[in-house]
């Protein structure tokens, strides 16, 4: 129920933001569209039997995203210097790291955060073990300190 409500709110905001025309006709059509989509996504859930909150609701989320942005900028600069230095500056490695998150959504968030920071990419997920490919030793160290892991886990509470 809670999930349905949040989906409705998100869809309504999406429609209003995109539309830019607030005549009764278009608002009505928007309401009909949202209804149709809620119906369809209900059916999809019935079929794949997967009901889970698709968004992380936590007051920590904005702080996390800001921290992630800073990380992205830092690692971008790192990769950029490596690109211009050429092949000599890279030493690709593959390693495994444990994720401490409980829910699937947070694990996905963690894995995607790893991928989003250039220099590290999540190759595969097996349970709570991620296989990560890093462009350099420094990138590997950065993931292994587990700071990102801790920060994502904090979102679950």
């Amino acid at each position, binding site marked *: 129920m809670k999930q349905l409500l949040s989906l409705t709110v998100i869809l309504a905001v999406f429609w209003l933001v995109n539309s830019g025309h607030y005549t009764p006709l278009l608002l009505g059509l928007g309401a009909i*569209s949202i209804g149709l989509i809620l119906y369809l996504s209900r059916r999809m859930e019935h079929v794949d039997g997967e009901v889970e909150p698709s968004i992380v609701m936590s007051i920590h989320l904005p702080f996390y995203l800001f921290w992630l942005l800073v990380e992205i900028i830092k690692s971008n600069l790192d990769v950029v210097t490596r690109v211009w230095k050429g092949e000599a500056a890279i030493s690709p490695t593959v390693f495994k790291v444990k994720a401490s998150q409980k829910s699937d959504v947070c694990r996905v968030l963690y894995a995607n955060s790893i991928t989003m920071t250039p220099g590290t990419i999540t190759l595969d997920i097996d349970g709570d073990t991620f296989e990560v490919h890093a462009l350099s030793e420094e990138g590997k160290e950065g993931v292994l300190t587990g700071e990102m892991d801790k920060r994502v886990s904090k979102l679950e509470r």
Partner: protein
Amino acid sequence: MGILVVTGLSIVFIRDLFAVVILFGIYSLVSASFFVNLDAVDVALTEAAVGAGISTVLMLGTLALTSRREKKSSHGSTLPLMVVVVTGGALIYATLDMPYFSDPSDPIHHHVAPRYIQQSGEEIGVPNIVTSVLGSYRGFDTLGETVVIFAAGLGVLSLLGRFGKRPEIALPSPSMSHHLILRVIAKALIPLILLYGLYIQFHGDYGPGGGFQAGVIFAAAIILYAIIFSTESAQKVISPFVIHLLMSAGVLLFAGVGVVTMLLGGNFLGYNVLAHDPVHGQHYGILLIELGVGITVTSVMLSIFFDFSDRKRIRSIEEQ
């Protein structure tokens, strides 16, 4: 333009069909930016949705049924080359007759275009001229196009589909549902894409968009679902029967609007009679026929996609 030419040439020369399909994606992306540059926003949107998205998927579907390598053609290539050169030459010769680019005295600017541009605001009351031309002045043409799409859907259906007959031993079609990240991300994204499709559908009057593009985007969202959680789940969400029903319902809606306007005493597809105010009538009429187009396009796309993937499954069963 340079990119277009290079891509086109490499499409011709690469023999790996899979790479060719991928390059086609680039080709349509680039040509769409070209259209935007020429201010043909609606065309660009169509190219974006159809060229880059659906046609890639459908070509891949075809590839899955045939083989990946291009066959070496057995007959010589001189004759086809001649034909192509002659046709190309003729076309270039024909363009010489055409007025210079953006010459204000060329006939296209004197025939119906000025009327479309100057009066569509008053007559139709729809800001997007392309939509009013497509939906109102050229309503017949659009109806024809919709029927063509419908016929294409039927054609593929009769070639590949087996009306109602399902394979008895259902080989599970492969899915990516073991793929955790994709599953979670797509789950959140699909409703948004669906809504976006509907937004394009209903805002065709104001911005670029309309039935064709909306239908394709809507279908793309459901195809994404089918890709990630097997085709069967998608067919459980929207059964093939409903799709076949909708396919005809869209065309009927379009034609029905025409018939209703005739019954109300107007011309076929003359929307002025739909409401007391002719401008409102036009508005509702365009909205309705665009809806018809959208429904048809969505269901035809889905039906083609499902047919391909069913066919594939049936063939794998037969092989075993």
